């Protein structure tokens, strides 16, 4: 996987995500569009009122996977810059847990890249949320990331 350009910004944070800073980071003179995704904490889960969420990550791997996502969107879409920030720890209802900003000369690529980035993040970045309710807490249902099968044995055979 190629390294994303140093102009990208990839962050795990424990305080409020500064969305304006991410947007300004991707804004350059060549861009005609900036598309953002703001993922925020919902007040219920399957109809059960949520009190708050607590996020944890395998931090070194999560950062590596987020950098891979940035590299992939550069390879797939004609965009300029990517900024991805995910927050960890306790988050209250309405707070931003993940924020993505993508800039591009034209809007279609920025929309497509932003959608690809959040969809891939939810499927492949090792971050977990625990949902707290009046009467207890549960780890949220998640997605099992795709895993290469027997890569090592193929390497050994070659």
């Amino acid at each position: 996987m190629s390294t994303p350009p140093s102009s990208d910004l990839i962050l795990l944070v424990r305080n409020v995500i500064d969305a304006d800073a991410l947007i300004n980071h991707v804004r350059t003179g060549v861009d005609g569009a900036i598309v953002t995704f703001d993922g925020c904490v919902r007040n219920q889960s399957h109809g059960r009122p949520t009190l708050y969420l607590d996020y944890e990550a395998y931090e070194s791997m999560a950062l590596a996977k987020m950098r891979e996502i940035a590299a992939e969107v550069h390879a797939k879409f004609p965009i300029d810059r990517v900024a991805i920030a995910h927050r960890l720890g306790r988050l209250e209802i309405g707070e931003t847990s993940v924020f993505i900003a993508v800039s591009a000369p034209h809007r279609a690529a920025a929309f497509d890249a932003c959608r690809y980035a959040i969809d891939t993040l939810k499927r492949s970045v090792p971050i977990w949320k625990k949902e707290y309710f009046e009467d207890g807490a549960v780890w949220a249902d998640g997605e099992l990331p795709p895993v290469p099968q027997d890569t090592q044995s193929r390497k050994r055979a070659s």
Partner: protein
Amino acid sequence: MLAHRRAAGYNSSVSSITPSIQVKVLFFGRLKEVAGGAEELVELTPGSRIEELFATFVARRPELARYRGSLVASRNQEFAAWSTPLQPGDEIAFLPPVSGG
């Protein structure tokens, strides 16, 4: 925080002369609660695979067995197949379905 443990199959009379490799093991999310800890150093026989490493934890915590089909493993921050051989110093993590975003 870290505990040294021998993999199943060792006994004290051979551990001093049998070569072994040491790997760091991490558990996350609900697996951390089921495994009873987040991080551990484990000694294994050379050539052991991720599957055998997980089996040593199942031997100690049988309730882990029912999570085998709904978790993925990583080796040195990359998702890895269960058949992946372990190398000395590897960082292996067992990861439940991810729910970020």
